[in-house]
């Protein structure tokens, strides 16, 4: 299988803290890769480095051979990386449909002239985009919530909306940052079931940060465990979870003990 994303030697410091301390990661096309680790191990920072939200102090990130280390976020998005955020960045001033339509930005005609002229094909294209958005909303289980203001959604529904919006960008690689945070076990199971189905349907490559270890073991084909800015273990889920180094790292952080 081809490697779609490769990160080598990523280093990033904030003030005195080394958030990333030489991280290597490779993601294969079509796989589901899990990323876990105690709080502060650098997982979100890793995502940020990949998507260009922060610039690493050292190291390289390549996407399908292109070096994207120093590229700006929007260019990386245009290369086919989509992400969701830990703190849910949906557009609360828009409806669900409009949020999902925002995902179409990269393929729409966003020129001023195009908007002014509204040549014949355009309203057909707009109708098509709207249809596509509605389909996505239904696919993530928000079919009852079309054209509802995003701020009126429940927490779980908001997560699905963010997923739908990310999917609408038609990415090759999707990064999910703690999708089940704040959900109870039942809700988490449903959401991750949806995620897996959605990714299979599109043959989408997925990298997921999760604290919910059993869920991640179920979902991922491979798991990377991080601690203190480094990759501890990169192995199958079962092997990763029972690796003594991983248990050591989690035991050192009491809060995560129960997760294992």
């Amino acid at each position, binding site marked *: 299988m081809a490697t779609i994303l490769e990160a080598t030697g990523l280093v990033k410091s904030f003030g005195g803290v080394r958030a990333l301390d030489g991280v290597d990661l490779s993601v294969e096309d079509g796989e589901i890769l899990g990323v876990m680790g105690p709080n502060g191990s650098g997982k979100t920072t890793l995502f940020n480095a990949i*998507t260009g*939200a922060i610039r690493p102090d050292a190291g390289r990130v390549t996407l399908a051979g292109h070096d994207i280390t120093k590229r*700006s*976020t*929007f260019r990386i*998005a*245009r290369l086919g990386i*989509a*992400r969701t*955020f830990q703190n849910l*960045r*949906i*557009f*609360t*001033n*828009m*409806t669900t*449909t*409009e949020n999902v*339509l*925002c*995902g*179409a*930005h*990269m393929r*729409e*005609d*966003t*020129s*001023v002239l*195009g*908007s*002014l002229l*509204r040549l014949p094909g355009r*309203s057909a294209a*707009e*109708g098509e985009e*709207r249809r596509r*958005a509605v389909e996505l909303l239904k696919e993530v289980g928000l079919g009852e919530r079309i*054209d509802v*203001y995003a*701020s009126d959604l429940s927490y779980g529904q908001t997560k699905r909306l963010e997923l739908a*919006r990310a999917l609408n*960008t038609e990415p090759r690689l999707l990064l999910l940052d703690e999708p089940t945070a704040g959900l109870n076990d039942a809700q988490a199971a449903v959401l991750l079931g949806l995620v897996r189905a959605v990714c299979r349907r599109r043959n989408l490559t997925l990298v997921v940060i999760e604290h919910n270890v059993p869920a991640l073991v179920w979902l991922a084909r491979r798991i990377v465990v991080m601690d203190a800015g480094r990759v501890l273990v990169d192995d199958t889920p079962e092997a990763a979870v029972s690796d003594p180094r991983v248990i050591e790292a989690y035991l050192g952080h009491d809060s995560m003990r129960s997760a294992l």
Partner: protein
Amino acid sequence: MSMPTLSLAGTDRTRPTGLVGKLILAALCLVGLVAVPKVVTNPYWLHILNLVLIYTPLSIGANIITGYAGMVSMGQAAFFGLGAYTSALLMMDAGFPWFAAFLCAGLVAALGGALVAVPCLRVKSDFLSLVTIAFGQIFFVVINGWMDLTRGPMGIPSVPQVQVFGWKARTETDFWYVAAIIVGIIVFAAWRIVSGPVGRAWEMIRDDEEAARALGVNVTYRKILAFAVGCLFSGFAGSLFAHNLRLVSPDSFVQEESLVIMQMAILGGLASIPGSILGAFLLIAIPEALRSSIPELIVYRPGIMGLLLIVMMIWRPQGILGRRRAAPALLLSLSDTLRRALGLKPLGEK
């Protein structure tokens, strides 16, 4: 779409306007165009309406920058003035025909807006407003001081009227017809721009820049574009202003004007084209009406505006016609916290 609908600000933009709705709107506009001068026969009041027409593109421009793209610009009077001076000088000193001067006014203002936006984006958004104030003042200082070009504080008198194919707009009525058509086209163009992906991209930036970037939006480019488009309209307004008033002087473009322009967008409705028109109407017609009946009130104009600003923040931060959620989240949370402070329920709760 089974039922044709009239699309107004306040409904989901993704639903297309029905054909019937469009035709009704067009018919109303046409009727209005012809009927107004017949109904409003007093030239003073027609002049007021003409001023509303002139300020409409200005208000729309401010709304694009602030309401759609979320950047608070407190220096729009400078671009208004830039358009006015450009148009007047091109006609008088360079012999341009009116329409060419009009177009150039818009383009020069748009260029100015884009140039100003570039350094503005280098500072935190808090400072953006300060920088726009500074640029507004720079403009004022320059036009006040550059006697050779702008005749300085005295201004440029006897600016020619609007002329199209040899026909001159000699009266307020004449001006009304030309301006109404032009402003109508501008309003239509603005609506087209903001109701499509361009407007949506701006709103994405306004609501969450980080998320917008992750969705492929070139934020820097789009912010500059917002300034360019907003100032394009401001420039057009400036040209209309110059050839209606027939005097272009620095006094018309002081800092307070920028605040009034910003207020038009905030009061009438952020991220709303009809709101911009309403804002222009309210902040032109009402002060004029008051001025003729209670002249002393003019002294209190800034204070009244200040009070209005605070009241709007509490009661309805998105403006009268703004979509409830079109107000940047920050203004909504202001409203909620102010209401709580006063013992009222926040707007969102039942």
